[in-house]
C-alpha cells in the first residue's frame, strides 16, 4: 500500500520504538500534523517554544537512554531549535530532530519561512539529511536513528520539505543499515586492554576520571565494579555524576573548576589517571600543562577525536565503554593475586585522599535565618526519593547541585555540561517527567535561567507533568556576578535582576501551584508540600544574594590553585 511521506515518517518513528515526541506545528509540517491527528501510537507534547521542545526531547533522551525526537516547522521554527540542538551535540545526546522545509521547488528562492537549516545545523549536529524524494525517506530515517544512537551519540536533523510529506510511495522499513563512511569501533583493542590492566595493577596512586560517556554508554555498573575490584578512587565530571555512587567511600565527587578539593588534589598527585569516556574539557583540566603532571594517562573513549585532543595520552583505547570495561574486568579476574597486592599498596594513597577529604570538604556557613542555597540542595536530596531526577540550568545553582546533591544513580542528573545552556532545566525536566510520570522530577534553576523558558509552565500544566520547579532566587545572574566580584572589582555590570518578580503569582497564572520560602526554617515545609501536591509546583527560595560557589579554580590556573574561602 502506498503511504504519503508524512505517514511514512510516523511509521518509521513507531518502528524505532518512539512513544513520545515534542513538536510545534507550522505551515510546512501541517501535513505531518494532520497524519499525527489520527496516529494514536505516539504521544505528542506541544511545548510553548521550539527550543524548549528540543530540550524536552533531550531531557527525555538523557533520562531514558532512548533517542529523543522533536519536530519543528521550517524557517523560524527550525532556527529556534539551534540552541537546543547545539546543547545536545556538546553533550553527545542521541536525538532525531525533524524540521519542515518549503517545497523542494521553492528551496533557494527565499520562500516564506525558508531557512537553510541543513547549512545552519551542519556544525552542531552529528549529521543531517535533506529528504528530496519520498522514496528515500524510510532509509534516511533508519540511518538517522542509527547514527544518533551508535558510536558517540548525537543529534541528527532530518529536513523534510512539504511536498515530500505529501508525495506517496510504497512503505518498507529497512531491517538494517550499512553506511560505508560510518563504522564506529565497538570492541577495544585486546592488547591495549591487557596493557592497561597491567599498568593499573602496578599503580600506587591511581585515580579513575569518569565522563558523561559512561552514563550514555550504560556502563555505570561496569565502572563501579572496576573501581571496587581494584579499590581505585573515582572522580567524575558534571555529566559523569551518577555513574559512581557519591556516597561510596571511593568517590571523590566532581573535579575541575568547582570540583572537590580532594578530587583536584588526587588528580594533580596521581601516578595513573584512568580517563573513561571523558573528554578533558577545559573546565575539568584547568591549566593543561599542570594537569595530572605526574600521571600516566589511560584514555578509553568511543570517539578517536577525543583522544589526544587536549592532553597527551600514554595508552589510548578506542571502543564502546561498556565493551571495554567488561573486557577489562575479565582480564582483571585472571590476576587475582596481583589485585590483592595492589590493594595493599594503595593503602597510603587512600589514606592521603581521606586526609584531603577531611581537610576541605565542600561546605558553607549557615548564619541567621537567611536561606543558603546549598542548604536547599541538601534538603532536596534528603526529602526526595533515591531515584528522583534532577535537571538544572546553568550557573551557581548548577554547581551547588553538583557539589551537594550526592548523586547515586545514572541518568538522575540532567545538565547542560558542554554548551552551558541557560533555560535548559525546566524543559529537560519536562521531557524526563513525560518519560517517567511516576518518578519525582525536579528542575533546579536560578532566577535568570528560569526566565529563559518559563513559558513551559503552560506545557507542564496542560500535560499534567508534575515537575517540581526549584528557583534559587538571588536576584542576580549569580555566576557572572561571582566572577565580577572576584576578578572585576565588584563591578556588577548588568548582572542584577532588579525587577522583583512575583513567581508565585506567575505559577498561579499558568494554573500551577507556587510556594515560597524566605527563611531557613521554611525550607523543609515547602519541599514536603511540593512533593505532596499532585501537579506541577514552583518553589521559590529567597536565598543569600552574594553567596559564592567554592572552591573555585580561576580560569587558566592549575587545579591545585583553588580559591577555598
Amino acid at each position, binding site marked *: 500500500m502506498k503511504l504519503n511521506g508524512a505517514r511514512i515518517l510516523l511509521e518509521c518513528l513507531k518502528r524505532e520504538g518512539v512513544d513520545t515526541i515534542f513538536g510545534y506545528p507550522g505551515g510546512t509540517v501541517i501535513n505531518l500534523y494532520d497524519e499525527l491527528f489520527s496516529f494514536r501510537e505516539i504521544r505528542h507534547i506541544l511545548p510553548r517554544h521550539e527550543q524548549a521542545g528540543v530540550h524536552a526531547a533531550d531531557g527525555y533522551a538523557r533520562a531514558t537512554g532512548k533517542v529523543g525526537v522533536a519536530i519543528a516547522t521550517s524557517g523560524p521554527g527550525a532556527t529556534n531549535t539551534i540552541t537546543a540542538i547545539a546543547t545536545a551535540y556538546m553533550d553527545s545526546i542521541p536525538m532525531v530532530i525533524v524540521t519542515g522545509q518549503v517545497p523542494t521547488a521553492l528551496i533557494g528562492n527565499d520562500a516564506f519561512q525558508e531557512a537553510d537549516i541543513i*547549512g545552519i545545523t551542519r556544525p552542531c549536529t552529528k549529521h543531517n539529511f535533506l529528504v528530496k524524494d519520498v522514496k528515500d525517506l524510510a532509509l534516511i530515517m533508519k540511518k538517522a536513528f542509527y547514527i544518533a544512537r551508535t558510536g558517540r551519540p548525537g543529534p541528527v536533523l532530518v529536513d523534510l520539505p512539504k511536498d515530500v510529506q505529501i508525495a506517496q510511495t510504497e512503505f518498507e522499513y529497512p531491517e538494517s543499515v550499512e553506511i560505508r*563512511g560510518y563504522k564506529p569501533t565497538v570492541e577495544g583493542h585486546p592488547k591495549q586492554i591487557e596493557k592497561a590492566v597491567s599498568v593499573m595493577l602496578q599503580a600506587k596512586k591511581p585515580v579513575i576520571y569518569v565522563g558523561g560517556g559512561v552514563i550514555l554508554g550504560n556502563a555505570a555498573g561496569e565502572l563501579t565494579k572496576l573501581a571496587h575490584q581494584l579499590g581505585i578512587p573515582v572522580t567524575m565530571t558534571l555529566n559523569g555524576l551518577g555513574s559512581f555512587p557519591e556516597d561510596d567511600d571511593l568517590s571523590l565527587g566532581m573535579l575541575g573548576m568547582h570540583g572537590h578539593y580532594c578530587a583536584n588534589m588526587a588528580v594533580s598527585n596521581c601516578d595513573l589517571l584512568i580517563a573513561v569516556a571523558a573528554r578533558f574539557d577545559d573546565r575539568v583540566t584547568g591549566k593543561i600543562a599542570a594537569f595530572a603532571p605526574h600521571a600516566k594517562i589511560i584514555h578509553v573513549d568511543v570517539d*578517536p*577525536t577525543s583522544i589526544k585532543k587536549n592532553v597527551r595520552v600514554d595508552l589510548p583505547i578506542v571502543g564502546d565503554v561498556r565493551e571495554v570495561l567488561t573486557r577489562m574486568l575479565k582480564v582483571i579476574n585472571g590476576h587475582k593475586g596481583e589485585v590483592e597486592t595492589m590493594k595493599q599498596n594503595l593503602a597510603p594513597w587512600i589514606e592521603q585522599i581521606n586526609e584531603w577529604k577531611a581537610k576541605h570538604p565542600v561546605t558553607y556557613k549557615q548564619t541567621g535565618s537567611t536561606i543558603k542555597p546549598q542548604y536547599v540542595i541538601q534538603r532536596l536530596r534528603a526529602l526526595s526519593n533515591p531515584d528522583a531526577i534532577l535537571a538544572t540550568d546553568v550557573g551557581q545553582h548548577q554547581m551547588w547541585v553538583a557539589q551537594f546533591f550526592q548523586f547515586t544513580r545514572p541518568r538522575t542528573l540532567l545538565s547542560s555540561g558542554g554548551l552551558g545552556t541557560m533555560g535548559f532545566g525546566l524543559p529537560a525536566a519536562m521531557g524526563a517527567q513525560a518519560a517517567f510520570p511516576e518518578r519525582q522530577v525536579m528542575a533546579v534553576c536560578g532566577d535568570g535561567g528560569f526566565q529563559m523558558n518559563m513559558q513551559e509552565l503552560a506545557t507542564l500544566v496542560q500535560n499534567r507533568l508534575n515537575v517540581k520547579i526549584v528557583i534559587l532566587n538571588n536576584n542576580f545572574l549569580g555566576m557572572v556576578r561571582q566572577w565580577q566580584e572576584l576578578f572585576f572589582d565588584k563591578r556588577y555590570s548588568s548582572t542584577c535582576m532588579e525587577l522583583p518578580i512575583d513567581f508565585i503569582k506567575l505559577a498561579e497564572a499558568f494554573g500551577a501551584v507556587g510556594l515560597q520560602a524566605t527563611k531557613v526554617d521554611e525550607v523543609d515545609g515547602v519541599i514536603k508540600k511540593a512533593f505532596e501536591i499532585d501537579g506541577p509546583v514552583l518553589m521559590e527560595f529567597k536565598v543569600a544574594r552574594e553567596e559564592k560557589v567554592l572552591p573555585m579554580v580561576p580560569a587558566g590556573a592549575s587545579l591545585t590553585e583553588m580559591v577555598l574561602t
Partner: protein
Amino acid sequence: MKHTIAVLVENEFGVLSRVVGLFSGRGFNIDSLTVAPTNDESLSRITLVTRGDEQIIEQITKQLNKLIDVIKVIDFEPENAIEREMVLVKVSAEDESRAEVLRIADIFRAKVIDVTPKSYTLEATGTPAKVAAMVELLRPLGLKELVSTGPVVIGRGARGWKG
C-alpha cells in the same frame, strides 16, 4: 609542516561544505583544495594541503574520518606519493622579454596556450616545487594572472586506492 591529505567522500551535495566547515570551525588551515569525481562515480576525491604540528594533523585526519560522508582519509608521506599541480599563467611578453618567456616555458616544458602581441598564456604541470620555480622566473617579466589547481596526489606502486 605541510601535509597533503586525500579524502574520499560520498559524491553528494553538501559534502564539500562539511569538510570545509570542519576546517574553518576548528581553526585548521587549508592552503589549497581540489575536488572532483573519481572512476567510481558515487565517490569524489578531495585533495587538500594543510599545515600543522603532528598533533594538529592527527586531529585533522581523525575529525575528517568522523564525518559520516567521509569514507577514507590518507595523509600521504611525500616519499610514497606523487604530487602534481597545474598552473595557467598569463605573462607580459613584449620586446626583449618575448623570447625570454618562451625560453623559460621551454625549460619547464610548459605549453603556450594563448598568445597576443603583448602576452603569452602558459600551461605547466609538475610538482608544486617545479611549478613554483617557473612562476618565480616569470614574475619579474610581468605576471598578469596566475591560476592554479592546487596539488593532486596519488600513491606510488601498483595498488589502487578506491576506499
